[in-house]
């Protein structure tokens, strides 16, 4: 690990200013991804600004919805009564990720900030445009089994590995950000992460020095019928090959409103509005679900080793929708 200066400011603004004034400084929250990447020399900050003791841990009702602090731990968030009752999709998504130990460490803001698990990104002996812009993408023609089938570029085919953000996207959440001088802005989760395009080194639209302070969840009508389905290489403690966050609001036997967000298939959580349009206004039947799943995967462009994700994605969508309707937790 490269040597770094460790500081622990007591105030939010102080922390922001410290990172803003040093281009190679980074915020340290749970550290479950950053410390790992530092050990691999993928991340080499000259200064770590420990923000874990800042007062950004509250989970509370706000504006008809719920505001969750950026530094609340994943465990606290998933288990908070307000989240469990009103946003079970978020609880399920968080609990589908990592292990109990990691969820006890990981924060909500840090979860959004986690970087790809592309093996070439982690291996500093290999070219990677995300790690070293301009060196090329090793995954494009390499072993790309876990990589993207949507929205990639010839510069990068990596996927965003998280679960929480997929649920947050389906729940129309907003990310509250504080910048230098304390000015705030809100970015919808759907616009927080980016597609790789020509600049895969940028995972998201946060500027250097900006700090996530909370995540705002608006009132949701999906609490009764939602489901987070995660398909992975083993039953637990693995990243998603394909994940599906679905939310349904029904009226009688018809679907009034829906959300389908896929994880593990693109550089950001991947929503299929086309598939939702197939569902909206239609009766709740397996046939409708199948049609939606076909539409959701229609534009997919699998790479050499990940064509399986297309069929897996279709089946996962149908299953997730069925479980959402039957409100089955497992």
């Amino acid at each position, binding site marked *: 690990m490269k040597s770094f200066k460790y500081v*622990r400011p007591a105030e939010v603004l102080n922390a922001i200013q410290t990172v803003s004034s040093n281009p190679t400084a980074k915020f340290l929250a749970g550290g479950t991804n950053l410390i790992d990447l530092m050990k691999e020399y993928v991340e080499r900050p000259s200064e770590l600004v420990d923000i874990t003791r800042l007062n950004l841990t509250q989970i509370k009702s706000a504006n008809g919805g719920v505001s969750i602090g950026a530094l609340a731990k994943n465990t606290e968030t998933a288990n908070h009564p307000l989240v469990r009752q009103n946003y079970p999709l978020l609880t399920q998504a968080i609990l589908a990720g990592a292990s109990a130990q990691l969820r006890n460490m990981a924060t909500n803001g840090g979860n959004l900030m986690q970087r790809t698990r592309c093996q070439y990104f982690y291996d500093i002996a290999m070219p990677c445009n995300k790690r070293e812009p301009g060196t090329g993408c090793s995954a494009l023609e390499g072993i790309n089994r876990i990589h993207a089938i949507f929205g990639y570029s010839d510069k990068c085919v990596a996927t965003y590995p998280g679960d929480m953000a997929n649920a947050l996207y389906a729940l129309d959440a907003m990310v509250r950000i504080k910048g230098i001088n304390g000015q705030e802005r809100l970015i919808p989760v759907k616009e927080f992460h980016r597609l790789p395009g020509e600049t895969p080194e940028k995972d998201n639209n946060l500027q250097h020095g900006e700090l996530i302070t909370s995540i705002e969840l608006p009132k949701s009508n999906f609490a009764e019928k939602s489901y987070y389905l995660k398909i992975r290489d083993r039953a637990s403690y693995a990243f998603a090959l394909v994940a599906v966050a679905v939310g349904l609001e029904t009226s009688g036997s018809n679907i009034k409103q829906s959300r389908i967000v896929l994880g593990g298939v693109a550089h950001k959580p991947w929503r299929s509005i086309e598939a939702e349009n197939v569902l909206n206004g239609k009766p709740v039947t397996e046939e409708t679900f199948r049609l939606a799943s076909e539409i959701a995967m229609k534009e997919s462009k699998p790479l050499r080793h990940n064509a399986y994700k297309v069929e897996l994605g279709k089946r996962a969508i149908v299953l997730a929708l069925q479980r959402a309707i039957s409100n089955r937790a497992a």
Partner: protein
Amino acid sequence: METELDYELHPELNTALSEDEKELLSQIPELTELGEGRRKFLGQVFASGLGVFALQLLAQEEILASMKASEDAVFALEALEENLVAVKLKINGLEKTLNLDSRVSLLDALRERLALTGTKKGCDQGQCGACTVIVNGRRVLSCLTLTATCEGKEITTVEGLARGEELHPMQAAFIKHDGFQCGYCTPGQLCSAVALLQEAKNGEASHATVSFQTNARNLKLSDEEIRERMSGNICRCGAYPGIVAAIQEVHKGKETAQTWRFVSNEEIAALNLEEKTDEIV
């Protein structure tokens, strides 16, 4: 002072040096320059099975410390350790102050600085759970925790689970139900399992919890629940059935039958007879 501190964490160490240990220590000339207390400590550490490597590390540290007065030595120290951070923390009930490089993980601080080698380094990248310890009542991975972030925190390692000679019920259950083979993942499994009991009492949900929308406390965990909740601890020997049985017994608070036993002398004798019979045939 450091010697004394380290002593507190290792009450099990015998203070007497054997003749062999004295002989071994006298063969390291640098150490003979150092105080008797330190020699004793090193001897005990050595005797407790820390091994030659740790002895060398400790000796190196001691030599550097003794050179501290000269400018060269200060320079040498700085070359080894950068961005020193002073951290006060409570480990297994005892308060410790460490001065260490900001890069030192909690796992390395426990093992290399405090000689608490019960906590194991498996993958060192958050994928195996061998390094699991309990910080402020929560199980975490010490390999991904910077010691610098632990100021004022309470840490429980596997060494802190037992009460003197009395094993923690989870330790006893692991032995009873054969919850390990090689034992390398066991300290992490134990810390994880102990914390899991509290999580179930708190009513915390897992991915396998069916009715997770309600906040019931004192959850009764199925075997599937325990497997999911322990998925962050990998056991290469595959002792999982024993681990689940052990946790289930402590969780239920009701004794369950051991599903294995040692073979009896009679059975061994019978086995030998059979083998001989085989040979004749």
